[in-house]
């Protein structure tokens, strides 16, 4: 009864100075939003990255950095540096310890979405999340050279349906000036949503990649490209010259290190084989530094938010000596006065923290699609959990602790003032 009574007095008192109270709450809200936001984005990025590829033992590409290789081959972030020859690919594919192998050929795009040249083994063996397969939603997998299978986001964003004709572009920019307009593709199928970069890719056969680049070997259109019409191309030998990367699954996990070493020291050309989990943890190590820095900065912002509460309460103390004397006269003890101020701070901090979380999750819901399309980082899986509860509790506890300063002053004032009201 008594504590509830003091709490309701604290709230009414705080909201009597409405502008100050709202600004204080806003200051705390923005700081909490920033702090939890940094944590959430990091965690969301990490979770969604980790569920993007499962079951793969090695990713192989031309020699560059492990993080770079995994980013461009699996996450479609950044550009490949070099290719791997088709002979090398076949050589590796024949190794006895390999259970399955998926070739990837990158470098083209459609309306800003990456084109992935691959084989049907991709749909058979690629796994994400908890061992889930990539499944077809409408239509069929590619059968003809000029068939394309769209990820769910591609179909949705561009409003494509099975049977539509699309034109691929050379290069991976969102605006390309060199289209493969002479060889349009037909949408043969649309995939179910996976929550991975697969949703944002156009999948075609390796042969298709070869076909659209006939006459483009120099990187631009030549006279040969003009005579190589779609029908003629179908008759040609479309064996790829090279691919960008490959994803490998092994029959038994323990052989992974030996195979990795063999591939990395492959004599014919410089290759790099990385274990996806290892490359990802290297990535987190790099990002971790930045993330800890951001975390520290946003924690400082939270501290500033809390100091704002302290300042507002301290500055209100003098104008409230009368209020305290009145409360003393109706039976409030100095402890009640003390509690009143601590609760006022705690209530402001609590409302601020809740507002901050509401703003954050509101913003995430609204901005997740934009973040996904600009950075490729899916944040839609981010949900409130115990971390948020802990942040709210910590903010409220810190505010209450800081409020001990004005509470102590008010306590002493109320002992010194007695029942006389000083203006």
């Amino acid at each position, binding site marked *: 009864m008594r504590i509830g*009574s003091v709490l309701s007095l604290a709230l009414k008192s705080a909201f009597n100075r409405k502008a100050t109270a709202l600004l204080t709450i806003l200051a705390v809200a923005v700081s909490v939003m920033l702090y939890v936001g940094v944590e959430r984005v990091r965690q969301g990025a990490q979770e969604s990255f980790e569920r993007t590829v499962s079951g793969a033992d090695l990713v192989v590409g031309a020699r560059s950095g492990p993080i770079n290789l995994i980013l461009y081959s699996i996450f479609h972030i950044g550009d490949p540096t070099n290719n791997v020859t088709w002979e090398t690919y076949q050589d590796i594919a024949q190794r006895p310890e390999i259970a399955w192998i998926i070739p990837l050929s990158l470098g083209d795009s459609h309306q800003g979405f990456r084109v992935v040249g691959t084989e049907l083994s991709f749909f058979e063996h690629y796994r994400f999340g908890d061992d889930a397969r990539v499944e077809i939603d409408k239509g069929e997998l590619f059968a003809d050279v000029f068939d394309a299978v769209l990820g769910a986001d591609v179909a949705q964003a561009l409003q494509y349906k099975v049977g539509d004709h699309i034109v691929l572009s050379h290069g991976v920019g969102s605006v390309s000036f060199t289209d493969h307009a002479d060889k349009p593709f037909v949408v043969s199928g649309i995939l179910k949503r996976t929550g991975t970069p697969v949703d944002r890719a156009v999948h075609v056969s390796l042969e298709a990649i070869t076909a659209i680049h006939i006459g483009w070997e120099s990187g631009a259109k030549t006279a040969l490209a003009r005579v190589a019409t779609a029908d003629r191309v179908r008759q040609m030998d479309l064996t790829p010259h090279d691919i960008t990367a490959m994803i490998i699954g092994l029959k038994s996990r323990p052989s992974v290190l030996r195979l990795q070493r063999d591939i990395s020291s492959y004599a014919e050309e410089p290759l790099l084989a990385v274990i996806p989990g290892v490359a990802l943890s290297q990535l987190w190590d790099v990002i971790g530094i930045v993330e800890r820095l951001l975390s520290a900065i946003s924690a400082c912002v939270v501290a500033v938010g809390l100091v704002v509460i302290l300042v507002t309460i301290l500055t209100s103390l003098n104008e409230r000596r009368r209020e305290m004397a009145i409360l003393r006269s109706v039976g409030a003890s*100095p402890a009640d006065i003390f509690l009143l101020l601590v609760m006022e701070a705690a209530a402001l901090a609590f409302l601020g923290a809740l507002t901050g979380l509401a703003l954050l999750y509101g913003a995430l819901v609204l901005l997740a699609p934009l973040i996904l399309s600009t950075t490729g980082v899916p944040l839609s899986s981010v949900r409130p959990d115990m971390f948020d509860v802990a942040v709210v509790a910590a903010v409220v506890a810190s505010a209450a602790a800081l409020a001990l300063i004005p509470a102590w002053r008010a306590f002493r004032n109320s002992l010194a003032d*007695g029942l006389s009201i000083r203006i």
Partner: protein
Amino acid sequence: MVAVVEVTKLVFAWTKESPVIDIAKFRVDAGERVFLRGPSGSGKSTLLSIVAGVVAPDSGSVSLLGQDLTRLSPGKRDALRADALGVIFQLFNLVPYLTVAENIALPCRFSSARRVRAIARGGSIEQETRRLLGRLGLGEAAMLRRKVGELSVGQQQRVAAARALVGSPSLIIADEPTSALDSDARAAFIDLLSEECAAVGASLLFVSHDRSLAASFDRQIDLSDINRVPTAAA
């Protein structure tokens, strides 16, 4: 007669060198209405703070309803004040962020005895609040929800009186409650206050520098007669 307030050999000084109060004996009986006169600076407010148990004397004893305040723990003193005392100040009696009704009900938040008595008397705290306001001439229904800042000074003082009276305390302390009122309102206020104190059986300790108000009280005391510290200290 039972003493509501009994002060014996009381000495108090805000700073060690200059005592403000030195009173051999001072007493208010149950149901008695006492007028305590003294010029400003004579230690009236300090004496009231001591009687209310908000300020502790340097020596001597102060009893409220037979309990020696100097021997009670601070918590017990606060509880006794909440139960037994209603206070009306000179001005600005009301908590600005509470409504008229919430201001009047304030003592019931800090004293369950007052809450119980208020409910026993009015049926509920709200009804008792309304009844008291009606008795003090602020009966219109909208009054309960009004903001304190919208009231005139005279209305504020009557609301303060209602707050002091709610839950039938044993003693009402009024510290210059009429100094901001004009002379007609002054007399009316004192009559109302006296009547209501009689109705709830409370003693009234009314402090003022204005000798002309003394007539309507049972007894009048001049602070300079009982306080052995010369007034010039102020």
